[in-house]
């Protein structure tokens, strides 16, 4: 597959899938990729500037689920592509599918718009039998990934990891370097999922509140009355507190490097070695909570960009995010990489071990999270620790009675949108004084749509969206473990664009779970116009999540600099989780002309309307 293979200094230091003894257990010493497959997860021995990739369908059976999966080189995930910063890469993608077109999008990679691989926006796709050549200079380093942007092929297996060597010496170079691609496997087609969800929104959810679960809830809530009251609140809103993931482990087998949990992917190490794990969430609908019991994980990179190391026990990875962590196992034993789905209906699992074939204990799954009024955007009751000075409770909110703040959001007739718009402005002023909202320079122009309408396509308005950057996310707040949150991400280098934003774009993330429609500002894609940005401008995007689910929002082509209180050291990301009921902002330097995609990376949300075209001119 390589045509211009290179080797680099320092590579010989690295051992990839070999064990501690000479020769190792798997004789997969650096080989040309044409002799692949190397063990999944092993970073190719050398970077290459030219790759020939062939897209086809192949019958693959995992966990008794047979799928003619679209994939590259016959494997799921596809091959790990190793590039080098500064190279001009050439990627020849050949479509060998019979009657469907394909495309490859290089997720998080900065490149010319016509190389981005989104049919309709970047190019016209790759028809069957044809080869498209992607060519672009590599201007960044770190862990990224690629996936199809056609016909939901991504959900069935057309994805893989990208590792880019930095031009400068890598501060995080380790003796061992593994890619950990997390994903899902099912024989249910994405079209069937959508159709089922259009008919019944909780089609895949079998963890709802029932009569059988009432005693447990009553104990947790401190009484039967309280438990019933909470249930009535949710049913009055026609929503479910147990709505965590739309598609669940009832049909998904969760994969780690293409391995089901019982296949137990294994990465080898020698005790005392530093092991770098490059996590990629290539799932289409699942967030994972990752930990390795017995090991501290040092988070060193997020979305391909180095961050100041953060030691954690656990972190959540949203769909399409990447995190690099370093672990240093000292004992000669097996450690389990445990990645449970956010809704706790299943897990992906792998093992780090000094020898192949070892298994470590697999921890039990945590209780599934339950949504609260915070997720509904009803404020930050009980989250006071996050914002001591400016808790929402202190805010003067005319027209909002105690009763309102609890629930009545669904009573549309009683809502005064004008007042709410006003409240939002107040809210922003308060935010300006909060020191984690570092950029206090007022923006020149604000595109504010106001609170979204309650209509066919939107079922909720977050009355009091709160800053949740300090929260690790639903289900991770009181685990007793150190869990990463967004506020801890601090870039190792200051941002390159020090200009304050000249424009702010406020977007509401909206949807109607019952009808299974998703969008921004109460509209799906087909009813909205493009977002037009001026080349060279600096824009602040503010996301208000009016839905009760997380949405990983991905802007193609340009970095999203998360305003998380780290000042000039704000992290550069390509995908940002907007937590339910939250408000966050990030800065974008508009330096890439062309048509770009902007969307929620939950595939079904994207496909059903949470997508916008961004036009930079």
């Amino acid at each position, binding site marked *: 597959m390589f045509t211009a293979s290179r080797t680099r200094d320092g590579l010989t230091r690295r051992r990839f899938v070999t064990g501690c003894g000479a020769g190792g257990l798997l004789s997969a010493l650096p080989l040309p990729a044409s002799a692949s497959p190397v063990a999944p997860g092993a970073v190719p021995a050398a970077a290459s500037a030219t790759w020939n990739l062939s897209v086809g369908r192949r019958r693959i059976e995992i966990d008794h689920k047979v799928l003619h999966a679209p994939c590259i080189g016959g494997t799921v995930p596809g091959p790990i592509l190793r590039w080098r910063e500064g190279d001009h890469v050439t990627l020849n993608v050949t479509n060998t599918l019979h009657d469907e077109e394909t495309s490859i999008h290089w997720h998080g990679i900065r490149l010319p718009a016509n190389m981005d691989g*989104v*049919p*309709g*926006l970047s*190019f*016209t796709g790759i028809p069957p039998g044809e080869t498209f050549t992607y060519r672009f200079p590599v201007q960044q380093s770190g862990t990224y990934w690629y996936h199809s942007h056609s016909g939901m092929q991504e959900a069935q297996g057309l994805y893989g990891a990208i590792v880019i060597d930095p031009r400068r010496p890598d501060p995080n170079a380790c003796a061992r370097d593994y890619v950990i691609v997390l994903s899902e496997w099912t024989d249910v087609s994405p079209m069937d999922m959508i*159709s*089922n969800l*259009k*008919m019944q929104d909780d089609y895949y959810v*079998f963890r*709802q509140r029932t*009569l*059988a679960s009432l005693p447990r809830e009553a104990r947790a809530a401190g009484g039967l009355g309280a438990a019933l009251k909470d249930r009535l609140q949710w*049913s009055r809103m*026609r929503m479910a507190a147990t709505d965590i993931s739309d598609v669940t482990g009832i049909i998904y087998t969760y994969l780690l490097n293409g391995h089901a949990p019982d296949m137990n992917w294994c990465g080898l190490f020698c005790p005392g070695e530093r092991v770098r794990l490059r996590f990629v969430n290539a799932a289409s609908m699942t967030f994972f909570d990752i930990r390795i019991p017995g090991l501290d994980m040092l988070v060193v990179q997020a979305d391909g960009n180095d961050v100041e190391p953060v030691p954690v026990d656990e972190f959540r990875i949203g769909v399409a995010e990447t995190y690099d962590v370093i672990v240093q196992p000292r004992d000669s034993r097996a450690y389990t990489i445990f990645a449970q789905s956010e809704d706790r209906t299943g897990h992906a699992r792998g093992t780090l071990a000094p020898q192949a074939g070892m298994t470590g204990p697999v921890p039990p799954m945590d209780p599934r999270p339950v949504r609260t009024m915070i997720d509904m955007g009803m404020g930050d009751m009980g989250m006071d620790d996050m914002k001591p000075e400016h808790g929402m409770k202190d805010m003067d909110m005319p027209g909002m009675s105690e009763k309102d703040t609890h629930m009545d959001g*669904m009573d549309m007739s009683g*809502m005064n*949108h*004008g007042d709410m*718009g006003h409240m939002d*402005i107040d809210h922003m002023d308060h935010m300006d004084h909060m020191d984690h909202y570092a950029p206090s320079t*007022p923006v*020149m*122009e*604000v*595109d*504010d749509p*106001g*609170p*979204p*309408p*309650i*209509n*066919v396509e*939107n*079922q909720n308005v977050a009355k009091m969206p709160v800053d949740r950057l300090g929260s690790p996310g639903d289900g991770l707040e009181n685990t007793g473990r150190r869990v990463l949150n967004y506020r801890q991400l601090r870039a190792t280098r200051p941002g390159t664009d020090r200009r304050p934003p000249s424009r702010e*774009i*406020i*977007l509401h993330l909206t949807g109607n779970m*019952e*009808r299974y*429609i998703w969008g921004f*500002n*109460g*509209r*799906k*894609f087909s009813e*909205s*116009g*493009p*977002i*037009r940005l001026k080349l060279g401008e600096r824009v602040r995007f503010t996301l208000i999540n009016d839905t009760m689910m997380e949405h990983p929002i991905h802007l193609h082509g340009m970095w999203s600099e998360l305003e998380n209180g780290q000042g000039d050291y704000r992290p550069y990301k390509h995908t940002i989780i907007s937590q339910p009921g939250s408000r966050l902002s990030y800065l974008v330097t508009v330096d890439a002309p062309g048509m770009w*995609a902007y969307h929620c990376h939950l595939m079904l949300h*994207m*496909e059903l*309307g949470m*997508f*916008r*075209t961004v036009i930079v001119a």
Partner: protein
Amino acid sequence: MTRALLLAVILVPVTVMPTLAQGSAATGTATATRSTKTAYHAADAPSSTPVVYLGNMKPVMDHASYFHGILDEFEGRYAPGGSDFRWDGEAWYGTDYNRVWLKTEGTLEHGRLHDGDHELLYSRAISSYFNVQGGVRADIDDGPTRTWGALGVQGLALYEFEFQATAYVSDRGRFATRIEGSYDFLLTNRLILQPQAEFNLYTKSDPARQVGAGLSDVDAGLRLRYEVWRKFAPYVAVSYAGYLTQAHRIVHDQRGETGALRFTFGVRSWF
């Protein structure tokens, strides 16, 4: 007097529609803050200049049509006085906003089909949870055929009650209304207890169809189903079908079955 009252009841579904519609446009307030020019518009507002997509390829397909059908009731009802078989189902095809619905129900008793009601409706989504539906209804069974124009609402009411209310006007200038509701109690995630009821009201009696003026008949059930998988759920139930007020007298005079509680077995299924 009673007629006026009946008309009022019949018109209820029509008059409540606007309140159910709930739709309201966001109204931006022009509150300027310090040195910030706030433009109250959405950055992604619909544009008069359409985006030209390469190869005319839309990046996502959020405007597709779907096709589903459900048999809520497909059941045998057993009682010493006489057993019967009943179905009640509906199917729809269309997009998020516009759909065509076909609804059908009927009861087979002693080899005779009655309560045969078939509707072809256009359905328009009007709010987060409700659709307004209009079209035609035909009463086709072993009795005389009647045709009606239909207009109603269907959706998910507060506290997650499934609710339908439809007003009808017949080719003979008569009015009728039907109100249906059901609720799912989850005993476990697969064992679900569903109370359900359907009421029919008419302005004028129609003895040939066992219809009386006023509240004419009720069909209710308490069904316990087990969702083997989502689309297939056998159930056991007790069901009650009976005639009320004037219809009760009509049926009684015709020596018909005026009402019976029956043990019921059936299957709920959908595609």
